[in-house]
């Protein structure tokens, strides 16, 4: 993806539901623009027509301004429509309509100061148990060494690879402070709150290399907490997973 992917308005959209978010943003801005221009015309008209000059006097009780009441009611109706017809359905889909785990790639992302630990379950498809007491510089995820499921688990630090046209479910957590998982081209933001594991989903409809940014101040390294997002073809993704899998030794304690 080149520079044309990013500009002075919305970045390119790669997510399946991203279009609806964009639609809402654009519609709202059109409404905002129309209201602003409308009011602006009235405003400047008043400034010119009612400027103080020779022979001109103010009127004590000028108008009954019915149009203003209708504009106000119109604004309320517009807001209600935006809320009920646009925002709530999109939000509900994002929050509740999860793809089935068997149809999706399930990943755990554990944020820390200042990196993203991307935890794949490996060939066995099962995540090894993790606990804070096992965390060390050679075991950033805190995988339990006695759990056989964790032997083939992969921690791709700051690298999030997933295949195109397949839903991804992320279990998001954090080791230390609040971080926020943000992929602008996916129109996705989710805070990682200590003490919680929050589930989100997304699906990319295009391949490419993108940015994952931390979107909640997390300390002095907040600005460089960047992850590389790679949306791959299924073949490229499989190859990448194989390479990562072969780096994991039998004991699985190098992550």
């Amino acid at each position: 993806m080149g520079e044309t992917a990013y500009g002075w308005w919305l970045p390119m959209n790669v997510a399946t539901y991203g279009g609806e978010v964009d639609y809402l943003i654009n519609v709202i801005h059109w409404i905002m623009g129309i209201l602003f221009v409308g009011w602006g015309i009235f405003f400047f008209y008043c400034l010119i027509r009612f400027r103080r000059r020779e022979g001109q006097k103010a009127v004590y009780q000028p108008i009954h301004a019915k149009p203003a009441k209708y504009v106000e009611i119109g604004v309320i109706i517009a807001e209600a429509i935006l809320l009920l017809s646009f925002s709530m359905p999109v939000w509900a889909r994002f929050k509740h309509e999860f793809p089935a785990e068997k149809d999706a790639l399930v990943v755990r992302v554990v944020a820390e100061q200042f990196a993203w630990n991307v935890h794949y379950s490996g060939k066995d498809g099962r995540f090894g148990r993790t606990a804070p007491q096992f965390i060390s510089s050679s075991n950033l995820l805190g995988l339990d060494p006695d759990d056989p499921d964790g032997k083939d688990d992969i921690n791709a630090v700051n690298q999030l690879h997933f295949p195109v046209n397949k839903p991804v479910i992320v279990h998001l957590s954090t080791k230390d402070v609040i971080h926020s998982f943000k992929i602008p081209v996916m129109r996705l933001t989710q805070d990682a709150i200590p003490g919680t594991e929050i589930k989100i989903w997304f699906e990319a409809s295009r391949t490419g290399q993108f940015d994952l940014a931390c979107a909640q101040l997390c300390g002095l390294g907040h600005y460089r907490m960047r992850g590389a997002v790679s949306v791959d073809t299924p073949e490229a993704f499989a190859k990448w997973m194989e390479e990562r899998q072969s780096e994991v030794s039998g004991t699985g304690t190098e992550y």
Partner: protein
Amino acid sequence: MHEQHHEHHEPGFWRKYIFSVDHKVIGIQYSLTSLLFLFFGFSLMMMMRWQLAYPGQPLPWIGRLFGEANMPEGVMVPEFYNQLGAMHGTIMVFLGVVPLAVGGFGNYILPLQIGAPDMAFPRINMASYWFLFVGGVVMLASFFLPGGAAQSGWTSYAPLANIAPTGQTAWLIGMIFLITSSLLGSINFIVTTVQLRVRGLSFFKLPFFVWAQFVTSFLLLLAFPPLEAAGVLQLMDRVAGTSFFLPSGLVVTGQPLEVSGGGNPLLWQHLFWFLAHPEVYVLILPALGIVAEVIANNTRKPLWGYRTMVYSLIFLGFMSFIVWAHHMFMTGMGTAMSTFFQATTMIISVPSVIILTCLAISLWGGSIRFTVPMHFALAFIPMFAIGGLTGLPLGLTASDLHLHDTYYVIGHFHYVVAPGTIFALFAGIYYWFPKVTGRMMNEKLGKLHFWLSLIFMNGVFTPMLLIGVAGVSRRLYDQTGYAHGAAVQDLTVFSSWSAWLLAVAQIPFIINFLMSMRKREKVRSDNPWEATTLEWATPTPPPHGNFPTAPQVYRGPYEYSVPGRSADFWPQHLPEEAESTQPRPATT
């Protein structure tokens, strides 16, 4: 009421100017202190803008003055950037805008506008100023602590703020002083407004400015205590090792945190935003009050929809307590809670729109005088409109998904506070300057200040709206590491230059302010703007006790251009029969 003749001991310098209990002196103290803090807070931001525009470059000339810890070789380190950010927000809100709008304007003008001799509790008034002063000193001193000042945002989210250096503890202590100042002040304002109105001044004859300060005071009174509680809890976490905001199992830089756990970071957010949302209405309501006064005076007609505006103000105050979690949409909030807060957020936009529309419609049929205060009051309307409108996409969760915590938010709230509230405060300064000092500020310098400020304010904040939509998060020491950040770097540079030029644009104001205070030419009338409200019925400047004899009010606050009268204004305190337009009340 008749005059009391106490022994007229002329108070010494200290009792008269430093430890005075006179609301006018206290108002001036608040105003000067907060103007200095506004300047300081603005300077912090100007430094941040250098790092944003030219990341990693040494700051020319002054960069090395900040020490090896903060700016080695003149290049800002990320920790210092974060300190500047957190303290810019804290100082501008709690030591700049609110003390000026409420402590400065409220203290000076409110008793005058209701015909009172002073505030209900003059000594508590004095105490509230000194609590602010101590809080400000603590905040400034925190820069010199090991590890520097607070650096977790003005929002001080846990757990980051829990594990931050000592400056955060100083921030919490400073906030306790500032909150105490605010509570004492709000009690004073409410009691004064209810109890000390002169005869004839019923609630619906009050100037809109008084209503605005009155509602603001309720917000301060009821919303601040939860933040005070939260501050105590965070202090306990930092100093006594408790875990109010720390869940179990945290591992910081590889080391497990040795705390009991069982706490909840979201508890801090709820308590913080329970105050901080009403706080933003504290930032705007006094400004609406000032703008209303200036518009009525300079259109020479009553405000359109005064009653509607008052009811909207009260409704707005009430609603401001039930929207707070719209700042927390991305914390894992479910659909039920987010629907509630989206709905209340949509609803709260209604009274704001009504008030702004009433102010705009007030222009219709007027005879508009383009005085300097009126320039600022007029510009307030479209600027506040942009601020308010840009709140809409943030208040809906689906659009907030992309815009949350980006520069769009920064653009949104700065539009409301900077070319919004601060412009209103400028309007107030130019407007009431002659009452306080007996001199008018220079008109040419005033208009220069206005036009430059208007242009550069927009230059700073419009790009931010674009940068936000492009996906750039806030509080980034360097955004160029991201493709979407690098793509808008030109806008960032433009914004920074606009900010520096905005600073230069304040020079005519500072010169005007300082020189006009002392100039020889004085106003020839106690009421140079030919206004109707009671503050203009006093001598200039008002003496101790304000009114030589207590006025009585006979009509509403904006009786301009009343049909059948020779003058185009009819002050509130003149009896029915008086044809004279002399501002001084007749002595009997």
